[in-house]
């Protein structure tokens, strides 16, 4: 039986009913990883031995009739900017190549409690800065649908590992679209939660007023079950909201009021536009009330996003001095400033550029010109969204304005790379949830539909996403 092909719900059910063992499942996945990794390169670290040990433990507990969690035995990959105790968390950076976290991130602890098995750490753009997973010291991750193309980013390893059937689900982080972009490019489901719904304790900070940890899976239902495990208040993250939500897949979805965001559709590649229009028609056929709506401030969203993200990056990354942890370089014979500047020259190109741009926009005299205005655009966007959510349950549009492009195509043109984030940054700026669901293919390449909802309205968003998913029936995993 090819259990490596199963999604989270079927794996957990099969292990619980002893149809197959967790050990057998993990063993098959490890063989799959060995087979496809030379093509995909989704992992920075594979935890084979530890995963098998954990699997045997799950099997023993099932056999003994003990209570096991809802994700018992389910293999999960975790983006390598989320801390797992005793396992290298490198952020795909030379600067953290030897960093062993002394603690688990809250999301990791909660997944463990739910019975999930960590199979490996997933590749990313260095410190999550990028949209293609090309800026990694471990080399680029490749799109399982066409290994000459990018998988999206920065959580490219997360999405590619799920699409390539190397694990059932994954955790990524989304600062400006980093979960949804690769989900769209790899034809899987990726969710960015409402800001404050999921704890960031143990997530290496890049732009902490924007980012959230979010799940990737092959179905909306699998993503929802990971959310049920990880979401909710955490006393270690002061920005988390009170309470612990629980999402179901039996929600009412008939008669949803759907807004198709004009600005998202207009800027898109004609093939992406056609699929998005088709998706809106499909939702209308399912009994939703669909109409075109406008978010005029989208025009300024990217400038606002890149001002805030780089400003926060420049201060968050100031902590890396290589003294307490980092790579091997003796401090002997160096004066403080020169040692600091020397070791920090080992950040990659994109990280260095963003730190410098962040320092520029925060420079004395420029605060009012860039940072303050960027924050005001953020308020404007949130106001426009709040007003639309009074009359609409969800807003839809393409997740990405273009199709997955060739590896190397935009790597030397940072601005061109930033422009592909135009549809995703809005949810981060406004703090609202958004999900990318596979919508179809153009020229054999995946296109995703983005569904956004108001703050803490994940259930409505999941209802719409699930309705669309069953109507569209888009293929998830390619043959590799």
């Amino acid at each position, binding site marked *: 039986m090819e259990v490596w092909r199963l999604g989270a719900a079927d794996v957990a059910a099969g292990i619980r009913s002893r149809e197959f063992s967790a050990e057998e499942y993990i063993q098959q996945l490890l063989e799959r990883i060995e087979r496809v990794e030379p093509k995909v390169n989704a992992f920075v670290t594979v935890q084979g031995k530890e995963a098998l040990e954990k699997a045997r433990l799950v099997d023993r507990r099932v056999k003994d009739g003990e209570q096991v969690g809802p994700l018992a035995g389910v293999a999960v990959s975790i983006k390598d900017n989320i801390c797992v105790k005793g396992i290298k968390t490198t952020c795909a950076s030379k600067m953290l190549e*030897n*960093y*062993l976290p*002394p603690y688990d991130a809250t999301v990791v602890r909660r997944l463990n409690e739910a019975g999930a098995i960590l199979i490996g750490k997933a590749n990313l753009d260095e410190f999550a800065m990028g949209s293609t997973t090309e800026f990694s010291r471990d080399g680029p991750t490749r799109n399982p649908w066409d290994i000459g193309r990018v998988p999206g980013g920065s959580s490219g390893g997360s999405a590619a590992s799920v699409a390539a059937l190397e694990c059932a689900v994954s955790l990524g982080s989304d600062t400006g679209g980093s979960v949804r972009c690769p989900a769209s490019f790899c034809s899987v489901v990726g969710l960015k939660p409402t800001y404050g719904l999921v704890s960031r304790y143990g997530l290496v900070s890049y732009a902490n007023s924007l980012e959230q940890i979010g799940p990737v899976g092959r179905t909306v239902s699998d993503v929802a079950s990971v959310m049920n495990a990880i979401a909710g208040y955490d*006393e270690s993250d*002061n*920005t988390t909201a009170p309470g612990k939500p629980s999402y179901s897949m039996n929600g009412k979805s008939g008669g949803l009021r759907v807004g198709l965001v004009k600005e998202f559709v207009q800027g898109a590649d004609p093939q992406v536009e056609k699929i998005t229009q088709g998706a809106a028609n499909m939702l209308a056929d399912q009994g939703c009330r669909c109409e075109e709506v406008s978010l005029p401030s989208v*025009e*300024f969203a*990217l*400038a*606002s996003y*890149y*001002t805030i993200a780089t400003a926060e990056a*420049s201060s968050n990354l100031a902590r890396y*001095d290589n*003294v*307490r*942890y*980092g790579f*091997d370089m*003796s*401090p*002997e014979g*160096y*004066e*403080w*400033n*020169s*040692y*600091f*500047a*020397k070791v*920090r*020259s080992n*950040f990659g*190109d994109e990280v*260095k*550029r963003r*730190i*410098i*741009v962040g*320092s*520029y*926009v925060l*420079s004395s005299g420029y605060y009012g*010109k*860039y940072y*303050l*205005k960027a*924050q*005001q*655009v*953020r*308020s*404007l966007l949130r106001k426009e969204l709040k007003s639309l959510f009074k009359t609409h349950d969800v807003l839809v549009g393409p997740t990405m304005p273009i199709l997955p492009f060739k590896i190397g195509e935009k790597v030397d*043109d*940072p*601005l061109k790379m*930033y422009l592909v984030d135009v549809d995703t940054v809005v949810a981060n700026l406004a703090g609202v949830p958004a999900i990318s669901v596979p919508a179809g293919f153009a020229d054999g390449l995946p296109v995703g539909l983005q569904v956004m909802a108001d703050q803490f309205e994940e259930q409505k968003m999941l209802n719409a996403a699930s309705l669309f998913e069953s109507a569209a029936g888009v293929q998830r995993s390619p043959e590799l």
Partner: protein
Amino acid sequence: MAVTRDQVRHLAWLSRIELTDAELDRYTGQIEEIIKYLDTLDTVPLLQEQEPITTRKKFSDLRDDTPAEFDSESLGTTYRKDGFVKGPRMT
């Protein structure tokens, strides 16, 4: 705004990042292009009426800071002396 090579060199120094000449050459044009794009913020209509979003949490709402046991051996550096971590000299 125009961005010069000297500005990039100065900002890199403020950020304590040593850049090679080749990096300076490459980054200056790229950063100028990015900054020019961020300048579109100057064209947003009616922006002065917008208040930035602020948090509603008060300082007094934060949990207390309490000391916790910490194993200094868990730090990754191999440069140590007399139970301390070794850094570069200050001057």
